[in-house]
């Protein structure tokens, strides 16, 4: 098999038109980190279990390690880098900081993206819903309780701002 040709992909990342060249075998996660320098998304398990690489793809949370870069032609992508509005942190980010909802921090970008997605859907999500919807994000440090409380607090902030 000869070396695969690179694919040219045009996409929107965090609101900006972006294009890149990648090999067909490169995951969206590899493209984001290695080609585009967006190193906020982390590689944890690289097989779809841990959620550290979670990004929004056309409005849905996905594991970017399980998406090929070549697949995102014409898609809209939001990464953890796009959550804050200039220098103002998003309520989810504020509450993770204030509630010390992290220790080593590797899982945090994925949790932030997934948490914002679930609160955008329902800022009043119950603890049970939060735990169910975040089951695709693993954290080996915190024991999850502080994360769940931070998400609940962020939901309250988001609900009062609207």
């Amino acid at each position: 098999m000869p070396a695969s040709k690179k694919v040219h992909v045009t996409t929107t990342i965090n609101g900006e038109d972006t294009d890149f060249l990648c090999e067909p075998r490169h995951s969206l996660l590899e493209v984001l980190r290695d080609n585009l320098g967006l190193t906020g998304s982390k590689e944890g398990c690289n097989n779809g279990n841990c959620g550290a690489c979670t990004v929004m793809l056309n409005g849905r949370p996905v594991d970017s390690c399980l998406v090929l870069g070549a697949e995102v032609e014409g898609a809209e992508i939001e990464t953890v880098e796009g959550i804050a509005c200039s220098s103002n942190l998003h309520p989810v980010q504020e509450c993770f900081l204030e509630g010390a909802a992290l220790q080593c921090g590797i899982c945090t970008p994925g949790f932030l993206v997934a948490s914002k997605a679930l609160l955008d859907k329902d800022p009043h999500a119950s603890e049970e819903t939060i735990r169910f919807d975040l089951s695709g994000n693993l954290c080996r440090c915190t024991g999850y309780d502080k994360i769940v409380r931070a998400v609940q607090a962020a939901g309250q902030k988001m609900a009062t701002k609207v």
Partner: protein
Amino acid sequence: MKEFDYLAPESVSEVVSVISEHGDRAKLLAGGTDIIVQLREGLREADVVVDIKKIDEVTSFKYSEEHGLSLGAAVACYHLYEHPKLSQLYGALADSTHIIGGWQIQSRASVGGNLCNASPAADSIPSLIALNATAVIAGPNGGRTVAVQDFCTGPGRNVLENGELLVSIQVPAQCNNSGSAYERFIPRNEMDIAVVGVGSWVRLSEDGTIAEARISLGAVAATPLFAEEASASLTGKHPSEENFAAAGELAKQIATPISDMRGTDEYRAHLVGVLVKRTLTTAAERAQN
């Protein structure tokens, strides 16, 4: 990951011609939640990966009271449980698609992919079998259909021959007095592989007895099973706990589970009885509402 080429054809016939040419060296890409992991970990190899998500009939779904649900093979799981009408009509599919992986997986993984991957423990297959679904296949010699209960031939193996692909899944229309449910047993609440999974469907008569029932078992044999005798035993019976428990005992007889780290064969057989009873109870409740 080893190198491969990437193609995204816009018609089923183009896919058939590419996969006919490359045979086993071509791999189809729908949601990618199985195949990308398999390619990365060297469990499967490909010269060319064929993305089928540019094809309308593979990525769309439609429901009519006459023809039922036509579910494109690459439609992601979330469509089934977020859709108000489909989740109500096809309770078993809503149940299973909501617990395949986590939210991120459900945004991409498809029922068609879950079927083609043919894991004995696949969550959506017992639901499809209980709902009497049919696989719609395209290939170099034209199309054919295969009942989902006959689609899987072994762990990771299915009836698709060289050049063939699953285009859609046809699920019969549902009436007001039918209902279905899927339940699996896992040691935690989410993100795990079924120790046992059971899908059940019932249609009630006007007098409240069971007109017809279908029960399917996952993770207790090399392929998901249709529990024919247990299903037939319910015809004409009342939807009672006693009758459901008796159907569970019959279903246990066709289970030939293995013992592994998830549970012993004895434990799995016991779970078949428990889950058959529970899913029939939920299916009957849904049929009554």
